[in-house]
């Protein structure tokens, strides 16, 4: 099946997300879309998938113009999509999720899930997915969830498969598996539209690359072109992909975690006997696939977890058992992993968000009374310092773009004297230019003598920032390795191999499945 987009324009109010985009997707090819955050990739795909109605333009299937009233029409036309944010109902089983919208029924309108189960098994066998149709989605690791998403498209006989940033949540090994699957699908004659920011993968799997910038197609790129060239095409200027930072000058160790065990809401040990320490002037990066205990680890430090055993000390003082407020006030800066859920109150103004954990302290408050003038003053300074793009300090934080929201959180946490700085996914959803800036701020904080803990699932970021790297797998520490450890070794550790084993076997591809992590503990 051949798919053609002609002059697609999509406006949100006054914002032009897609501007006369032309695109041709052919069977047996992997067609990659490349572009920075907010370039309009997902929007284009949502138009193609019938979720959005294009403001202008036409979609042609095998040369015939079609119009999609909704995803139902697109699916009927043979288009399947795996969304950037998974579209799975967490309290449903895999089978229920896959049946949804495409239900087989028995007499009396009763669901016939057996048929769906059979289909799932058939496709699982064909592509080597290992998916239990009767597992609850919320209990599944993200890797498996993603396979369920792919099955969802395949069950509907998709000829064109859209994969919107499918690798963002996968281990390197899982990513490799996915790429293999893509190749197999391609061999079966399916057309694949692939979106990713990870140039390595893009280069590995693409047949065609189209670069989008600010809603417009700026041209095609050769998959064999060097990464730096692709990156500058994306951003429209040359970018330095590496962070320049001086070697660490570790001072005394002020932050210690000893035998930390955190039991999550579902009764599982999310963090299991972790011990580590960070010296002043040093960045420890915690690497691992999402949902391997990083969230619980950082939350336990801040006192957000209820069932914590072991000890966490900062400057010799025990943190376990203390209130969050105490811990914050004792000088712990904390950037949570999901800014819009945990980092910001969307309905609050930017100014209010900038004092979200200091609203009751001088100079912002005296007794019970807050001082709005000081809050506004602080906001003006922080906005200027961190280049937060907002209509005004009084604008609701929820109206800011993701990257700017992130800057607000970082600005809040980095603008007071800290004894420990913890940041999860510090640059998630932030554009390349701002990443540079935020990274420099983090390094500056280190150089100022603060112990820093960075949690990131992005290996690039980990490697850029870390002086030492701790890898978590299923809540356990796989080892702490130097900041210049190879990507492959880290990948193996993230899949559950100890540091020593990983070092020795890093070239061996045939490792046991590493997908079995638990995400339920991580969704806090």
């Amino acid at each position, binding site marked *: 099946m051949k798919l053609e987009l002609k002059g697609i324009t999509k406006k*949100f109010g006054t914002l032009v997300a897609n501007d006369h985009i032309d695109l041709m997707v052919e069977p047996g090819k992997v067609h990659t879309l490349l572009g920075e955050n907010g370039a309009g990739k997902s929007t284009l795909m949502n138009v193609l998938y019938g979720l959005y109605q294009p403001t202008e333009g036409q979609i042609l299937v095998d040369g015939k113009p079609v119009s999609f009233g909704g995803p139902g029409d697109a699916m009927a036309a043979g288009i399947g999509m795996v969304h950037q944010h998974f579209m799975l109902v967490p309290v449903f089983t895999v089978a229920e999720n896959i049946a949804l919208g495409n239900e087989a029924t028995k007499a009396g309108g009763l669901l016939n899930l057996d048929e769906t189960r059979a289909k799932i098994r058939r496709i699982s066998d064909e592509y080597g997915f290992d998916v239990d149709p009767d597992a609850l989605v919320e209990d599944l690791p993200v890797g498996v969830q993603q396979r369920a998403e792919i099955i969802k498209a395949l069950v509907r006989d998709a000829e064109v498969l859209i994969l919107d940033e499918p690798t963002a949540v996968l281990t390197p090994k899982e990513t490799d598996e996915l790429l293999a699957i893509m190749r197999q699908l391609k061999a079966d004659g399916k057309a694949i539209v692939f979106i990713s920011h990870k140039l390595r993968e893009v280069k590995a799997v693409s047949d065609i690359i189209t670069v989008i910038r600010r809603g417009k197609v700026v041209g095609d790129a050769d998959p064999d072109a060097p990464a730096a060239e692709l990156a500058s095409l994306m951003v429209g200027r040359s970018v330095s992909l590496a962070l320049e930072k001086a070697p660490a000058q570790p001072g005394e160790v002020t932050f210690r975690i000893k035998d930390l065990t955190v039991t999550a809401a579902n009764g599982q040990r999310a963090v299991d006997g972790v011990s580590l320490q960070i010296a002043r002037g040093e960045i420890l990066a915690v690497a691992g696939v999402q949902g391997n205990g990083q969230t619980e680890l950082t939350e336990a430090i801040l006192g957000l977890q209820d069932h914590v055993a072991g000890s966490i000390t900062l400057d010799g003082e025990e943190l376990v058992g203390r209130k969050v407020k105490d811990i914050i006030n004792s000088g712990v800066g904390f950037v949570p992993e999901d800014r819009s859920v945990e980092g910001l109150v969307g309905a*609050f*103004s930017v100014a209010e968000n900038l004092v*979200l954990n200091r*609203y009751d302290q001088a100079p912002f408050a005296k007794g*019970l*009374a807050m001082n709005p003038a000081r809050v506004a003053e602080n906001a003006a300074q922080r906005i200027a310092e961190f280049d937060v793009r907002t209509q005004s300090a009084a*604008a*609701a934080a929820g109206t800011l773009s993701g990257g700017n929201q992130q800057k607000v959180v970082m600005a809040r946490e980095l603008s007071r004297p800290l004894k420990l700085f913890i940041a999860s996914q510090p640059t998630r959803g932030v554009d390349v230019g701002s990443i540079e800036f935020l990274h420099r701020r983090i390094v500056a904080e280190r150089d100022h003598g603060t112990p820093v803990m960075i949690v990131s699932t992005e290996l690039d970021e980990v490697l850029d920032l870390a002086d030492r790297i701790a890898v978590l797998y299923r809540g356990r520490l796989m080892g702490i390795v130097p900041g210049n450890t190879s990507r492959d070794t880290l990948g193996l550790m993230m899949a559950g191999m100890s540091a020593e084993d990983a070092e020795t076997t890093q070239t061996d591809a045939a490792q046991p499945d590493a997908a079995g992590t638990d995400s339920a503990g991580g969704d806090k």
Partner: protein
Amino acid sequence: MAPPAVPPSAQSGQLYPEEAGTQPLLHRIMASETMVAVLAVLLSLIVGGLLVALTNEQVAAASSYFFARPGDLLGAAWTAASEAYAALFQGAVFNFEGQTFARMIYPLTQTLTVATPLICAGLGVTLAFRAGLFNIGAQGQIIIGAMLAAWVGFTWQLPVGLHLLLVILAGLAGGALWGSLVGLLKARTGAHEVIVTIMLNYIAIYLVGFLLTTPGFQRPGSSNPISPQLGGTALYPPLFGDTFRLHWGFVVAVLATVFAWWLLNRSTIGFELRAVGANPMAARTAGIGVTKSYVVVMVIAGALAGLAGVAQVAGTERVLTAGVAASFGFDAITVALLGRSTPWGTFIAALLFGAFRAGGVTMQTNTGTSIDIVLVVQSLIVLFIAAPPLVRALFHLPEPGAVSPAKTGKSKSPAATGGAA
């Protein structure tokens, strides 16, 4: 029942202030929120008027010969509706038939009197809303507040000033106690506040019913469930002399509004509870005690409702009965919603409802129009004001700015983000 009932408009600021400036004045007026509010009231009055007309006997009579003399029908309908509303106005704002000036403005003071408990209880509901709690329990909180206040009022003999002060404190404490039960149960066990408040309303009614049959509360020499009258020292003094029922409780209600505004917008407690209401996860991460906030806000909300109870027993009714709360606790919910969960909005909404209530009584006695019509009009107003696009569509008004409806209603509203119940 996930969402806290914070109307999106309560929290978000003006998203597109600059856009207004670029449009012609007339367009701006027609598209403004005030215009929508005015039209919503108008529309509700029209619907209510139609109802009055439709059920009027003269109208029914005239309709039997409609085709012969259609004018009669329309005339009768107009008369029925306009007389009802004239009486409503006369009873709520200004009595142009009054013999003395005092009589002329008497209705307005009545409106303020009725509004007093509505303001206080409405503020309680508003504060709870803002912390993400749907407080249906103002009724029970008023009752318990009134109960304690009345008890202090008729049992103790104390000097002027001190006595009233203690009455007020007792009312605050009673409401706070009843509210805190909700907060504690929610915080400790996660029990849904909607259920708990509904149940506590009933329990409060039976409790006061029981107490009114016991010697401590029952009027001596009477076996009716009614308390002794409160002593003079326990009462709010009249605000404008004995001619009017309006008492200092109204001033207290105004102060309560100022307090609620300050608390919500200028105090650390308000900051905390707004944060908890808008996004409990972020509040927790910022070191704000979410469960503590639930308790705190319910204590304050209950205390405010208790203040409404004080207004009843120490101001308007001067006696405790099982029906002392009338339906103020439930009206308070609508008032808070109409006031968009802001203190001054609640204040104004309470005045409006007070006017309807006060005028409704006059409307009923003067024109025989059932006071229930007031409920209809009130609820329609809230509905229409909550749905500006509907009003605009009905009156062919322009949309404000160039904002598409999809964006204005985008799920970044607190109702969507702060949805942990």
